[in-house]
């Protein structure tokens, strides 16, 4: 029998009652937690939001989450054939599921709107 990883993932948006989803996925030695989450998004549940872009190189620094309570890059933390608890960073504004607001404040849309005196929504 091939091994599986059980990912318990925090879901939802701020203001919604906290909920989690459980995903059972095939475990491959050496795989990253992000590999597992990308598998979930691609094959099981595209509605799960997990911020990332470089996938392998650990250069974009977009994928930081809590893995079993510890701050980790999802793309360098190893997947393990057991239950793993994944949550968004606690010290950043929560957007959805595992995604928090990490853009520098002066690179956000609202900052540009204010700076340019643009027309708001």
């Amino acid at each position: 029998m091939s091994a599986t990883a059980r990912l318990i993932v925090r879901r939802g948006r701020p203001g919604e009652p906290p909920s989690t989803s459980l995903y059972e996925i095939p475990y491959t030695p050496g795989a990253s937690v992000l590999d597992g989450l990308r598998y979930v998004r691609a094959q099981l549940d595209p509605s799960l939001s997990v911020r990332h872009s470089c996938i392998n190189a650990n250069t974009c620094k977009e994928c930081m989450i809590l893995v079993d309570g510890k701050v980790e890059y999802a793309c360098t933390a190893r997947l393990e054939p057991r239950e793993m608890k994944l949550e968004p960073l606690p010290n950043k504004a929560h957007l959805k599921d595992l995604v928090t607001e990490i853009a520098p404040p002066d690179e956000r849309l609202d900052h540009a709107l204010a700076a340019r005196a643009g027309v708001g929504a």
Partner: protein
Amino acid sequence: MGDRADKAARLETDVLVIGAGAAGMTAALAAAEAGARVILADRSLVGRSGATIMAQMTVAVALGEEVPDHWEHHFADTIQAGRGLCDAHLAQLVCEHGAREIRRLDGWKVGWARKPDGTIRQAHAPGHDRPRCVYVDFLSTGPAVAKTLRGRVIRQDGVTRIGDLCIVDLTVVDGAVTGAVAVSVADGRPVQLQAGAVVLATGGLTRLYRRNSASANMGGDGYALALRAGAELMDMEFVQFFPIGHLAPRLVGMDPIMWDPFRYKLGGRLLNAEGRDFMNDYGNQEAGQYNVTRDRATHAILSEVKAGRGSPAGGAYLSFQHLDEATLREAFGPVIDRLAKNGIDLGQMPVEVAPIAHYHMGGVRVDNRLETRVRNLFAAGEVVAGANGANRLSGNAITEALVFGREAGREAGRRALGASAATPAPAPAGAFDLVRAARAGGEAELAGAMTRLQAVMADDVGPFRTAAGLERALAAIAELEAEIGDMPPGQPGPYNQARLDWFDLRSMLLVAKTVARSALARQESRGAHQRDDHPLMASNWALHQTLELAGNELVLGRAPVQGAELSQVA
């Protein structure tokens, strides 16, 4: 007409630069230096999220620091590698102005590796006639370039940076671009951007393939944006595969193309399952030196796999076992420890490597000033076609991004300032329909679509192609198009990634079709385009194929090559 757009956030600027890699950041700097107000938008983080920061290796430029050199020699090598399809003007631009941009970065303290006497080190990469490639140790070229440019952009008051802003369409009025429609990813808000000129700097399309070296942002958005705006694409069949991408064991925290610099510095033996060197079985002459170009090396490795002599994971072995620990450590310092963390000890074991999608030679068709046929719409960087023809020399891409970024940014800045004070054009009717569209559910139906597209592209539109395979791919793409439908799933909202997937698929399927259609039509093998059913290069195919959209139909055309005789330049 404008009332739906009125509910969108609206920003107005002289120049809008889309994409913040080396090309986009350089374009933003150049436009601002020309006096324009600039918005630099990226779908992820500014300066962190494209191919630029991932480029670990080298940048080709005729500095003449290592040995005497002249841009004309670099040009001759570029033209030669391009297998008859380089646009001579664009290639010249890259080779001639590359040195200026590399020196400019040096002045900005990017940190090019130097010798004790202060001269800049230049490595000898395959396809170049001499040592020409500058780099930042250790494997830090891209991060250093990205960080340096980002630092300059931050200090340039004329540039407003906006991350997490995904551009989904350009707006065009009377044949001229007037701005763009975007989604603010963090909150789902639609955004209208009005601009006097636009520079597309969105990078390549390698995410179309199952195994690739790219980031999740490399789905080829820029090609789709350009097509839908009325611009032409060119040479879309030429996708470069990087021959020795890392395959196994799973390596995290390092880019899969990392083995190239190891081979430059240390050699490294490429072996088949029988433990035999095979590169020279395919007409190559590799003798300790690592000098076989990418298209040939890809061909050799995949031929071994096809013949049943591949490694267990479906590639070739790469071995450094003939080197001792001290040699390895001297060449790669801390990288050796990062490998150890992944359980890889190069002195003791080979790794497995295989060709992976890496770079796109084709792209948006531009004139000598990097303007598309849509007025005021410019393009820069990997998204542009022409400079590299049918095959790119290693190290040319960063140079291209820097040089084209500067040219396109300056031209766009001048254009926007020259235009009569931009009266904000109303967004064309319907421009905001997609970004506002809301429906119940639909997310679950997207499951599997991206994986299927990537499999189809890898299996049938990859390094080896046949008419039957390409027809099969086009049918599969049409099926996927029907499946995803013409409306994004769910509602606009904070970080709705499934919705973003839909916009990505919308572009990726269109772009995939342009690659497959041009590959099917080109009945020959040339550079990165290899047809098993037409294995030879045909002189009557020394031409570009172009693509445009007429309504929803892709129309394929042909254009002559703006060429140069090698004898004139070498």
